[in-house]
């Protein structure tokens, strides 16, 4: 196994706008990378280029010393020793669960007792041993997902690709499957690449998150870092809850802005404005603060979620333990903000 390197990767389907442009990225060995972005941002195209279903127009993909693809040619998917969980699971309806899981072994010439024991082991990991003789059509969505995962496990692939694997599951199953994925990653040690548009999934699972937008890579960082220190408006808006305020802040100074500087910026109306990300957990009711209008208050179970409006008409979000009436003005302090 080795690290996976995407080097200035581009793909143009000839539609006028490149689907992926100039994406460079290194996934460390055994890493779990989430490719996060809204639909149509090119993340699935990147995944399909790594798998070998699409050929890059430009740039290259390397796995350690091996070149998998470059502008001139590409190694076919069947020779890449990768595995993938598809959004539709892609289980073959004419084969039993065991035959589905064991197919990569069969193609590699493994047969007989060796085949049986390895299939049994793979099914044991996803706790589906007793379903070996069933057909995929007899299984529930979550079980199908686990069969697809077992099929990835069975050959110890170098890279496991996951294409929005949880998109078709309900919320309850999702968290159970997230746990299975984490276990799977710890156990197999494979490099995993996970495409999703759900930032919650990405943060919960990945060791690194790569945010894409309109075919470009915006930022790659571990989840905590990308949450605390996002780069630019797009990443700031995409990762975590929060609001972006345009405030007249000084050009110099630290990017983590403390309350006094924010308060000063609120009073300042002159000068060019800069975008600042404010997380709801940093907005707290405090008599020392500035007056904000509560425009809505929604009960979310463990707390209330507030939408607030500044005097200048900008929106903010905050959490509160108690309900607040719509329309009232209350003082709030913004403990910190992050300059994007």
């Amino acid at each position: 196994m080795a690290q996976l390197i995407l080097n200035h990767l581009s793909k143009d389907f000839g539609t006028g706008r490149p689907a992926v442009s100039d994406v460079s990225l290194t996934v460390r060995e055994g890493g779990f990378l989430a490719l996060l972005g809204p639909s149509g941002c090119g993340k699935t195209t990147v995944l399909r280029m790594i798998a070998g279903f699409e050929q890059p127009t430009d740039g290259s993909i390397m796995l350690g010393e091996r070149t998998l693809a470059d502008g001139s040619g590409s190694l076919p998917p069947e020779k890449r020793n990768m595995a993938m969980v598809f959004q539709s699971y892609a289980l073959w309806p004419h084969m039993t669960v065991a035959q589905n899981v064991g197919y990569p072994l069969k193609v590699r010439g493994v047969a007989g007792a060796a085949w049986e024991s390895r299939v049994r082991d793979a099914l044991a990991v996803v706790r589906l041993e007793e379903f070996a003789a069933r057909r995929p059509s007899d299984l529930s969505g979550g079980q199908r997902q686990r069969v697809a995962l077992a099929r990835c496990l069975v050959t110890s692939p170098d890279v496991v690709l996951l294409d929005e694997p949880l998109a078709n599951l309900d919320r309850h199953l999702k968290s159970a499957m997230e746990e299975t994925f984490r276990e799977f990653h710890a156990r197999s040690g494979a490099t995993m690449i996970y495409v999703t548009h759900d930032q919650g999934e990405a943060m919960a699972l990945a060791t690194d998150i790569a945010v894409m937008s309109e075919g470009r890579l915006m930022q790659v960082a571990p989840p905590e870092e990308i949450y605390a220190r996002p780069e630019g408006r797009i990443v700031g808006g995409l990762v975590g809850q929060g609001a972006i305020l345009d405030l007249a802040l000084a050009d110099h100074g630290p990017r983590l802005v403390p309350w006094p500087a924010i308060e000063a910026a609120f009073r300042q109306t002159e000068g060019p404005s800069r975008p600042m990300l404010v997380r709801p957990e940093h907005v707290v009711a405090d008599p020392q603060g500035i007056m904000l209008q509560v425009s809505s208050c929604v009960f979310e179970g463990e707390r209330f979620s507030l939408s607030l409006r500044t005097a200048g008409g900008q929106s903010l979000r905050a959490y509160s333990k108690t309900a607040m009436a719509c329309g009232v003005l209350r003082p709030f302090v913004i403990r910190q903000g992050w300059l994007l």
Partner: protein
Amino acid sequence: MPKLSARGSSQPVWLLPLVVVVVCLLSGLPLARLLYAGLRFSLEGKATGLFTEPATWAAIRNTLTTSVGGMVISVLLGATFAFFVTLTDFRGKGVFSFAFVLPMMIPPQVTALAWVQMSGPASPLLKALGLAPPLGSPQPLYSLGGIVLLLGVQHAPLVFLALKAGLASLPRDGVEAARLAGASPSRVFRDIILPLAVPGLIAGAAIAFVSGVGNFGIPAILGIPASIFVLPTLIYSRLSSFGAGTFAEMSQLSMVIAVIAGLGLTAQQWALKGRDYRIIGLSGKNAAFSLGSFRLAAEAGFCLVLFFVLVAPLAALVASSLVPAYGVPLNFQTVSLDAYREILFRQSVTLTAFANSLFLAGTTACGLLLFTVLTAYLLARRPGKLANVITGLIEVPYALPGIVLAVAFILLFAAPLPLLNVSIYGTIWIILIAYFSSFFAVSLKPVASAFLQLDPSLEEAARLSGAGFSRRMRDILVPLIAPAAGASVILVFLIACSELTVSALLWSAGTQTLGVAIFNLDDSGSSDLASALSVLVVVMVILLMLLLEMLAKHLPRGVLPWRN
């Protein structure tokens, strides 16, 4: 380290060239040959003098009369039936549809033969019932009117199916909205349903017209005895009286047929312009009008129509297969199975025909499947302009009247093959190649729709599992499209087994097909043998259709021509 291939696609490098070569050989080459001959002979037009003969113009006139007349009857019959079956609470829709579409699957010469046996002075059925007109009175179907009527019956299912496809997607909520807006049922029909049905009606009418232009079996059985010739039968008679200018005349006449058929399709394009009504909304349930007390009457009416167009002719066919000789009435003293014994055990001509047709139909159905699976895979994985051209090239020989295609193959193979210096003209192989060309589209359709419906990730998962092209085909793709492949084989077999038009021009002694044998037996006056052979063909058609019907729930929508 394995080498990088230049292309990232899933198709092996040899696939596209193979498909292109096969399609060019089966479709492009004969069409180009025909076009070349037609143009060359037309430019040297004075050499043949074909267009100075009154017979030519009479045939053109007859072709236009019969196909327009047939089209009118088809539209009246097919549209009425389609409206009732799709829009009302009519019972037994499945059975009615199957019975109504059956005439389309029965070979036209058999239909014609059955109707001849049903009417006229020698009809065993009418004689048995004591209804036969006196001997010596003319057979009323040996006329232009008879040809028109039978073309109408034969092609009514085409209108029915074209219209039904459009009406089935007409959502119930559209009709309900109109009712709530205050429109009465008849008003809804006039203002909502009829306008939306027009495209289907036009398409159905065009298919009926073009099929009428190319039909050979009906005018051959009904027209030739009365010396009424249409263009396909004129070509046939020219070939029979082989002369110096035959090839030139045949290719010119084929061009005329192609032009008339082309004009029909152009008229359709023109009439359809601006009528692309895409149905918006849920088309789950069909609109349903309650017929109320009128329902029983409507059902009885359709039973009566089906009795006359289907049951009575087939009963007459069976009756005349059971009488010992032409003109003998059928009763308990005369009934015999001699005709069946004769064709199944004694006559070498019919035995050869059975062997030939089974060989041709079986080889065509199974042999085509090999190319069909590869072509369908290519078309599904490589959509674009080239795929459209390939699809078009495959469809032309099927859309073209069979007689035109047969002429194209005669022109192509009349001379010995280059290099090999062997002539396949007059052998069974020329018929086989023409069948491959003609039925490629029939074979392709079910398989192509199965591939298009297949989730591409099923194949991608197999690729990542390490399976190469042939491995994926064997383990994953072929098992998944197997029902459609089965349907493709049965459909081609069904149509090829009783085919007449192509083989009528291409057969020679020893290579006659079942269609040709029926035609020749009838021509030589052995109507009992012809009827017996026809009965067997009809039984086979019905059995194969029922077999497909049983497969139906495993098939992609629209694969079976009589279902949608």
